[in-house]
C-alpha cells in the first residue's frame, strides 16, 4: 500500500476519532460545566442537611443558579455550614429563604432559594439567615405515629 493511501486512511481515522471525543463532550457530556463563569459565595447554616452533597445544585424557581461548594459542621452552633457558589448574573435579596429539598421521592438533594422582598441584595460572602432543614422521612413517620398514638389515647 502506498504512502498517500495510508496517509488518507490515518487522516480519516484521526478525524473521526477526534469527532468522537467532541461528540462525547458536547452530546453525551456537559461541556458547559467546564466553563467557570464569574461567581460569588453565599453561606447558610442548616440544622440538618439530609443527603446534601458537594456540587449539588442550588436552584431558584427550578433553575440551576449555582453549586454547593463546601459543607462543614459548625461545632459552636451544632449546625451544618454550607457554602454555595452562585453565578454572578443572579442576585438575591437579604431575606431569601434557603431550603433543602429533594426532587421526587428518591431524587437528588438540592438547595432551593426563595427570593424575598428586601431591596438590599446579598453580597459576596453574605449569609442567608432564613433556612429550612431537610425533611427527614424517618422523623416524619415517627412524628406521625406519635400523633396517632396521642390522638388514640385522648379518646
Amino acid at each position, binding site marked *: 500500500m502506498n504512502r498517500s493511501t495510508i496517509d488518507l486512511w*490515518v487522516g480519516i481515522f484521526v478525524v473521526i476519532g477526534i469527532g468522537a471525543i467532541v461528540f462525547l463532550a458536547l452530546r453525551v457530556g456537559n461541556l458547559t460545566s*467546564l466553563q467557570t463563569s464569574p461567581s460569588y459565595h453565599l453561606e447558610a447554616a442548616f440544622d440538618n442537611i439530609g443527603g446534601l452533597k458537594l456540587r449539588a445544585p442550588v436552584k431558584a424557581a427550578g433553575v440551576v443558579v449555582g453549586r454547593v461548594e463546601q459543607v462543614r459542621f459548625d461545632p459552636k452552633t451544632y449546625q451544618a455550614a454550607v457554602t454555595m457558589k452562585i453565578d454572578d448574573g443572579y442576585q438575591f435579596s437579604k431575606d431569601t429563604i434557603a431550603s433543602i429539598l429533594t426532587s421526587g421521592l428518591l431524587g437528588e438533594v438540592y438547595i432551593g432559594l426563595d427570593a424575598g422582598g428586601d431591596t438590599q441584595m446579598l453580597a459576596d460572602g453574605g449569609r442567608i439567615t432564613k433556612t429550612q432543614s431537610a425533611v427527614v422521612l424517618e422523623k416524619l413517620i415517627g412524628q406521625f405515629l406519635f400523633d396517632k398514638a396521642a390522638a388514640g389515647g385522648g379518646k
Partner: protein
Amino acid sequence: MPADAVAFLLRRVGRATQNSVSRLGFAARFFALVLYHSPAAFKRIGLTMREIYFSGVLSLVIIMVSGMFVGMVLGLQGYDALNKYGAGDSLGIFVGLSLVRELGPVVAGLLFASRAGSAVTAEIGLMKTTEQIDAMEMMAVDPLARIVAPRFWGGVVSMPLLAALFSVAGVFGAYVVGVRLIGVDNGTFWGNMRAGIDFWPDITNGIIKSVVFGTAVSLIAVFEGYVATPTAEGVSTATTRTVVGASLAILALDFILTVFMFRGV
C-alpha cells in the same frame, strides 16, 4: 533429605525472583530507550503513520461493532434493572457513565491488545527470528528507532481515539435499543445523559485512562516481541504473553486509576 528439598524449593523461588526482577528492570530500561529514540519516529512520520494505519485504522471495525453490541446489551439489561425501581428514564446516564468511565477504555484496550498488540509482538518477534533485526544493526540502522518506536507511538496515538469511538458506538447502540426498541423518550435519554455526565472529570478521566492503557499495551507488545526467543515456539509464546500480560495490566491499572480518580465522587 527434607533440608535438601527445602533448599531446592528456595533456590527455585530465588531464581524465579531474580528472573522477574531482571526482566522488569530490562523492561524499564527498554521503555526509557524507546522514549529516547522516539524523536526518530516523529522525524520519519511515515513510519509512524503506517503503524497507526495497522493498529488503529484496521482495528476500527472490531472496535465499533463490539462497542455497538456492548451498548445494546447495556441498554437492554440496564433498562430491565432500572425499570424495577421505576428509573427506566435514567437509562441514558447509566449507559453513558459506564461507557465513558469504564467500558470504553477497558474493553477497547482489551480488544486493542488482542487485535493490534499481538500482531506487533508477532511481527517484531519474527523479524528477530529471521535475523532482520541483526541485519539492521549490521547496516548501522538502530532497530529501536526504525522498528520499535514507530510501533509504540502508533499504539499510543490510536488507543484514545479507538476508546472514544467505542464509547460513541456504545451510546449509539444503547440509543437504538433504549429509544427505538424499548421506547424510552428520546429527549429524556439524551437530556439525562447530558445532565449526569460532566466533561470534567468523567470524560477527561476516560481519556486519561485510554492513554495510559495505550502506553501499557504498546510497551508490553514491543517489549515481548523484542525479547522473544528467536524460534517459532518463542514467537508464539511471546504473542501469548503479550495478550495475557496486556489484559492483566489493563485491568489492574484500571482499578488503580479508578481508585485515584473517582474515590471522592
